[in-house]
């Protein structure tokens, strides 16, 4: 269980993080969304014990980042947005080094390394030198490093940056698998459609303030409480609009262009099909009729102003 309570980080006149609070339970995959400079990395670095909060705290399974940073470090795996790897070491030696640091018993180290290599699909690279790996493979090795001590919480800061589409897809699968394994995963990213695919919870931060937090569907409902149905007609949409506006459960009809209408609708799926039937019975020539779903990008654009600190 991760509980973040009123985290603040102040650098002189600049307040990088303003009272961020949220809590996550095992298995949660949390998408942390925000522009550059919004405060994502600072928040993640405070949770990882790299930065000391000016005010507030966070606890991971009872271990407090201020009072028990060592206890927190034993439970987290942190992958920074920019990271390096040691030269002149092999993949298994790199993992063995971190397994030693993370106090994995010597007798278990080999099997732990084999397991994380298998999970991250790096078994064939076991004896390769880390500097010889591609960017995507290095990213997976960094993730493997985060897993050697079986952490409860994974902090992945922009893990997909610089990866090609295939590597991104593989990383996504891996994160989903980690969520299934009961780990709390915090992923910060700019690639919003991808986050929506695998995060069950998102937080939107701007200028250090958490603007929204919760399950993706809940946040989508918050910004778009009514359903929006896009209708394309053969006739002039202006003539159709008044007739549609009078139909049941229609809250409003707006002209998108000459042949397109956007209808705010508060009915369910059955009532939606009745609306389509009513349009056809009224001899309106409907070419397209579909519900428009808001996505994370819409939510992000709606809630944020793009301002940075």
């Amino acid at each position, binding site marked *: 269980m991760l509980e973040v309570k009123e985290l603040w980080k102040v650098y002189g006149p600049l307040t990088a993080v303003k009272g961020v609070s949220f809590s996550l339970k095992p298995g949660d995959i949390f998408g942390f969304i925000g522009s550059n400079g919004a405060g994502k990395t600072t928040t993640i670095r405070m949770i990882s014990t790299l*930065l000391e909060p000016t005010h507030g705290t966070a606890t991971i399974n009872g271990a407090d980042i201020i009072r028990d*940073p060592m206890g927190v470090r034993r439970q987290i795996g*942190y992958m920074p947005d920019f*990271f390096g790897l040691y030269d002149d*070491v092999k993949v298994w030696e790199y993992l063995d080094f*971190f397994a030693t*640091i993370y106090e994995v018993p010597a007798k278990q180290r080999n099997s732990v390394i084999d397991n994380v290599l298998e999970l991250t699909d790096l078994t064939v690279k076991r004896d390769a030198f880390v500097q010889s790996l591609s960017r995507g493979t290095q990213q997976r090795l960094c993730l493997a490093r985060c897993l050697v001590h079986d952490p409860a919480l994974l902090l992945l800061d922009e893990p997909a940056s610089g990866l090609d589409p295939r590597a991104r897809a593989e990383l996504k699968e891996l994160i989903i698998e980690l969520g299934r394994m009961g780990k709390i995963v915090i992923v910060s990213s700019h690639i919003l459609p991808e986050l929506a695919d695998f995060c069950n919870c998102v937080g939107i931060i701007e200028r250090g303030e958490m603007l929204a937090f919760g399950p993706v569907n809940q946040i989508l409902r918050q910004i778009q409480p009514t359903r929006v149905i896009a209708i394309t007609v053969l006739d002039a949409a202006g003539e159709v609009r008044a007739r549609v506006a009078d139909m049941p459960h229609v809250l409003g009809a707006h002209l998108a262009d000459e042949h397109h209408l956007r209808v705010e609708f508060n009915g369910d799926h059955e009532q939606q099909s009745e609306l389509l039937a009513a349009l056809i019975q009224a001899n309106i020539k409907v070419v397209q009729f579909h519900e428009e779903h808001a996505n994370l990008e819409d939510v992000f654009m709606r809630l944020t102003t793009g301002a940075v600190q």
Partner: protein
Amino acid sequence: MTFRELVIENPLQIEFKRAFRRFFGVSRNGTLNAAILVLCVMVYSILMLVVITYREFMSPIAILILQLIMLTFIVPANLHGAIAAEREKRTWDMLLVAPITNAQIVIGKMIGGVLLLLFVSALLIPATVLSFAGDNDATFGKVLAAEAVVLGFAFFLAALSVFISARTKRAFAAQLTIYAVLILGLIVWPIFTSVLVPYREQGYLLFMHPYYAMARIWDPGSFGSMVGGASDQALFTGWLQLLVFLGAAAVLTQITIQTLTNSDGDAGPRR
């Protein structure tokens, strides 16, 4: 923190493996490093040949000064990147979020440098012993006292290198800073002293200067009279210098441990 945790079981011993590979393994810089290693072996062989051939004209102090010169360059060259290079390569923060104490990190980084300086010093022991033949005034006590100065200074230099490395973001900047401090301490300070301070008082201001201290230990009579008197000769025991250098190294190491910061320059929660 126990000796076992700090030294014997310190995970940073992986640094030895990396250093070994740089010279003997197949890596990007392997060929260049192997060439440097071959060059070092050749220079060492020539030195030993010269000492064996001309041992009747040699003095242990010459070998000890050679050892001091070598360590003055080797120790910073080996340790300047201990922490700065980790910051530069962005591996530093991953080490800081691990359950490892600042003391383990700093001591782990220093162990490699200290072992190297002891190895270099050990290599020069045969030459020092052989050169006894050429100096009738050489005594075991003098050699030990001078060796104490050399090793004390090298330990201090190791601590200084890690201290400066911990305060810089670039390994090159750390290296420049260390050599700048050495130039100030070993060259500018004696010049400043010789110009502004009377002869009789210079010994008090230079008693921690390793080259000056070795000269005073080796030849108190001539060097003492050359600088105007021997009233301060009691300072040049070698052991006093060793104690002060080790004390300063311990203080610097402690400060480094207590003020270690992440790549943002923030100390984070106390370890």
